[in-house]
């Protein structure tokens, strides 16, 4: 049997000894969090006061925030107390906050969906009128920006044409490559970079 409290103390002091973001410190923090998560020394604040499913969600949220605080405030640990006393004190406080956040989020009807449940909760296809807004904007191009830029050496491959194919008609890069005979790397790089460049233009006309 290894002495877990002693190991936790050593890892904490090891992390403190090295400057922020040094490999040794990061390694110590990683191991420390791993050890804390798998130790059976973690407290369970407010247990029994919540339905089991809700409790699990609250606990996970609080535990996650606790890990972050331990890492970011490792300097605050004082070796007079066992590491787990510090961790569990933090966990208790983060649990109280998680409860507050939970009430707020409940109003927004947030569900913690599993991969299987996700498929049943996806929003439906947009109405044609809404989908048309993007097409209309790309086609009209009120400031003549989309039509003025094209892939070098391919005047037919303007941003306008490619954006309609990709964003409105939902064509794959492969399909666009077949159509224009321009490599996927060139196509995608052009479209991604220009989308970035035209972001303010998009926002100006398509603000929701």
């Amino acid at each position, binding site marked *: 049997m290894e002495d877990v409290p002693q190991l936790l103390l050593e890892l904490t002091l090891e992390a403190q*000894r*090295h*400057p*922020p*973001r*040094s*490999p*040794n410190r*990061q*390694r110590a*923090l*990683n191991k420390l969090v*791993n050890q804390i*998560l798998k130790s059976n020394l973690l407290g369970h604040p407010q247990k029994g006061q919540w339905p089991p499913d809700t409790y699990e*969600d*609250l606990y*996970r*949220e609080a535990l*996650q925030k606790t*890990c*972050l605080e331990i*890492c970011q405030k490792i300097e605050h640990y004082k070796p007079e107390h066992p590491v787990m006393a510090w961790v569990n004190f933090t966990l208790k406080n983060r649990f109280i906050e998680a409860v507050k*956040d*939970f009430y707020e*989020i409940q109003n*927004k009807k*947030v*569900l*913690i*969906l*599993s*991969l*299987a449940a*996700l*498929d049943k909760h*996806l*929003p*439906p*296809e*947009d109405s044609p009128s*809404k989908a048309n807004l*993007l097409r209309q904007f790309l086609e009209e191009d009120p400031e003549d920006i989309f039509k003025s830029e094209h892939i070098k050496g391919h005047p037919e491959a303007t941003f306008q044409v490619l954006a309609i194919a*990709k*964003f409105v008609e939902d064509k794959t*890069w492969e399909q666009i490559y077949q159509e224009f005979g321009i490599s*996927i*790397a060139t*196509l*995608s*790089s052009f*479209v*991604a*970079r220009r*989308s*970035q460049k035209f*972001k303010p233009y*998009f*926002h100006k006309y*398509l603000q*929701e």
Partner: protein
Amino acid sequence: MPTKTLPFTIPLSFEAHSLAQQYSQKQSNPQKAKQVYLNTLAVYAVDFYLRCMEFETDWLASDSRDPLMLKLLDIADLDVKQIGKIECRPVLPNAQSCGIPPDVWEDRIGYVAVELSESLTAATLLGFTKTPATEISLENLQSVDDFLVYLNRLQQQQPVVLRNWLEEIFAEGWQAIEELLHPEQLEPAFRSRGITYIGRGQQIDLGMQRAEKSVALVVTLHSEEESELEIKVQVYPLGGETYLPQGLKLIVMDESKEAVAESRDCDNFIQLEFSAELGEEFSVAVVLGEAKVTQHFRL
């Protein structure tokens, strides 16, 4: 034997799912909505992990928090301050590879694969790659350890802007000299002169594991004229040591020249002094055996 630190499993709860839901519901069709949901969880996990590792991230400024950009491209980016943009790709349970869509092949410093659990309540960082491909086999990913080392190296390549020091603006990790050094170490170098100086220092770890040595890199500025600064770069022992390890080298380089100081048997510190003009750049390297730490500076 190099030890691999397995990154810890990141718990995902209602904060993560709330964001995922918020952004996915703004999408125009179910496929796209699912993609955004999973992408958001992946970015959430990486953002959390990097903040645990004391990096500064700016998720809100990233495209993956812009509903419009999400609608156009398959994006899961995360801005890491002073370092660059990384892409966080979700990997489903039991998958053998990680897909990286052409939408994000540009302007990324790396791609992190994030495995999500069946219940979507846990995420694990699997590794990373610097070069994108449509599909990358999980076996071919570099480790998360290497990812952290890579990010740190990129950050060190960012120059420390010394001009800011004159306005008392110091980047993270640069401590007041009094906090860093033992009072006895301050004596000869800092107290004897009656002039004002601005100095800061940083702990540097040389080497790994057992053979490690920590030293302090101290940079002091002294200005007599507006346009030119006197710069002193010093290395001190840390951890209660009186002397520097023998053979430790301090190297200052600029475009055209290089100056080297090397510690002898019983040196309390070593130093190099030079002057530089505003706008000039130089690098400082501290070398001990195989270990080398380089930091860039700009005036």
